[in-house]
């Protein structure tokens, strides 16, 4: 089963914890972001198994998805 991890302020801003969402397999990253209650523009990077992917990426079984905000001072 795929896993979804949030970093930085995304942890604080998510309305739902990723582990409470149910399986993410087969869903687009953008839909997962929406289900988490996060503003999509705040997610700067989608890393899947160590590679950057667009938010249209369809999550595969065993994927490890990390959502990274544009952090720091900006």
């Amino acid at each position, binding site marked *: 089963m795929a896993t979804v991890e949030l*970093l*930085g302020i995304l942890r604080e801003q998510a309305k739902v914890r990723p582990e409470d969402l149910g399986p993410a397999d087969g869903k687009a990253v953008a839909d997962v972001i929406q289900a988490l209650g996060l*503003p*999509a*523009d*705040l*997610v*700067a*990077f989608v*890393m899947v198994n*160590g*590679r*950057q*992917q*667009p*938010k249209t990426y369809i999550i595969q079984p065993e994927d490890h998805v*990390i959502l*990274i905000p*544009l*952090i*720091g*001072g*900006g």
Partner: protein
Amino acid sequence: MLYGYGGNILRIDLTTGSITTEPTDPKLAEKFLGGRGFGIYFLFTEMPRGADPLGPDNLLIFSPGPLSGTLVPGAGKLDITCKSPLTGGYAGSNVGGILTAEIKYAGYDSIILKGKAPKPVYIFIDNDKVEIRDASDLWGKGSLETEKILKDRLGEEFQIATIGPGGENGVKYACITTDYGRQAGRGGVGTVMGSKNVKAVAVRGNKSIPVADVQAFRRAARAMYKACKDSPGLQVWQRYGTAGVTVWSNEIGAFPTRNFSSGQLEGYENLSGEVMREKIVITDKGCFGCPSPCGKWSHVKKYGVRVEGPEYESTALLGGDCALTDIEDVAYANYLADDLGLDSISAGNVIAFAMECYERGILTDKDTDGIKLTFGNAEAVFAMLKKIAYREGIGAVLAEGVKHASQVFNKGSETFAIQAKGMEFSGYESHNAPSMLLSYMTCDVGAHHNRSWAITYDIQTGRDTVTPDKAERVIYLQHVRPLFDALGACRLQWVELSLDLNLYVPTIAALTGLERSWDDLLKVSERIWNLTRLFWFREVPGFGRAWDMPPARFYKEPVVSGPTKGKVMALEDVERLLDMYYEKRGWDANGRPSPQKLEELGLTEFAAAV
């Protein structure tokens, strides 16, 4: 003992050949720190008022900061300051690499060039041995080739800054290159170097930097490194560098496309950091003392060249703004800009402007010598870069910058000449980002993002609202980010890795022996900011509010496509932003610092000279 500093100011008069040094004044170090602080101090106090930017009276000042060349993460930043030939005002350009450490190890906190050499020269600095050497055989060569020749001639230990044909030929946005691909890009610092007949500066240093408390400094710096290495942001920033931003920038409609008429390029996926990594990147390349090397060294097989980058900014302006969608085309354009010695940001912006003029019929084949200057035509971009660098045909007009070109071409083109204060915008489309637009409007060198990258604040607080907190945020960033340029260190460990700013306080204390709070350091940064503002008022006749306004495209012409389609700022909102900004800065309605603000910052004596 002045801890944390090289200890000397080196002055070279290229007209007379005079070379002198003097000890760095501890009071200057306290009041202006170093780096860009030293740069504007010397420029303001020693350059005659009204000096021709390309004349012998202008100064070209290379300044590391107290953190440069030390154990602090990212201690590889150098400031280069002069009066800008592009804008007529202040230019302070920041560059990475290793040069700053070498200058510091040679014992210098500023190297000040003035005058003009009678023939092409390069500056040779080997610790205390400083010479002005003949460079006739180097004149006309590319920036990268020149560096290679001097490395072969002098040895790998020498760190070298060079200019290319653009700087020799007076292109107003010529850059200075070091470390085979790091640029002090903005404002024409390379143009000023060329005007002085200086092809290169080569430096080797073997001295130590005095540290007030070595053990405490080592502990503090190691804590900073550990925080960087533990940062979750490291995986993405190190893999992609600034190119990691390209996808996000397009998704939010902030990627300058077709001369800032849109914020999303169709086919942007082909320019992503991942595509770049797969197709062209050979290895990571960091500056001095970097824990998160964001530079990427690339092999562009399609054209048989190697180049550092492209960075996000080069991809945004040479790529998106000119509508190129092949990463190898963008990388080759980047290579040409680097070797010709052109700022890839200004050059990309200027060519995109010319493309729009061509597509609107303002320019014709006759003007372009038959080049089909349409968006997306990579060969046209390559050809125009060469025409600009050598001032051939229309290149002679475009070499003066987009503001000047729009005044020559006329026919309403000023509306879409994307500049502020005469400097071309960098890589963030800002129709729907009030804080970012204000950042460009009020940046102290012209429209550049590095003083305040506030677009994330717009996203967090609402992109359609114009509220006082946005002006406050821009001012805050304009103090924090340039503070790194005064300290001589990279800000990206903070921006990208969320390195705690409080970690800098004990580190600076252990290095210099002076306990300074973060607020105290921010006050220095505010002092520097206000002094650069005074410089503009002193040097540019009639300077004021009008110079802070963006081109009309941002408040008259809605975005044509992408996620921000239809968005446009209202002119009254742009004016309101500026009003709020001036008020919070303690400036009058024309953007001039008030006597009270200047007194608070200890700048009253400088105001008397304006």
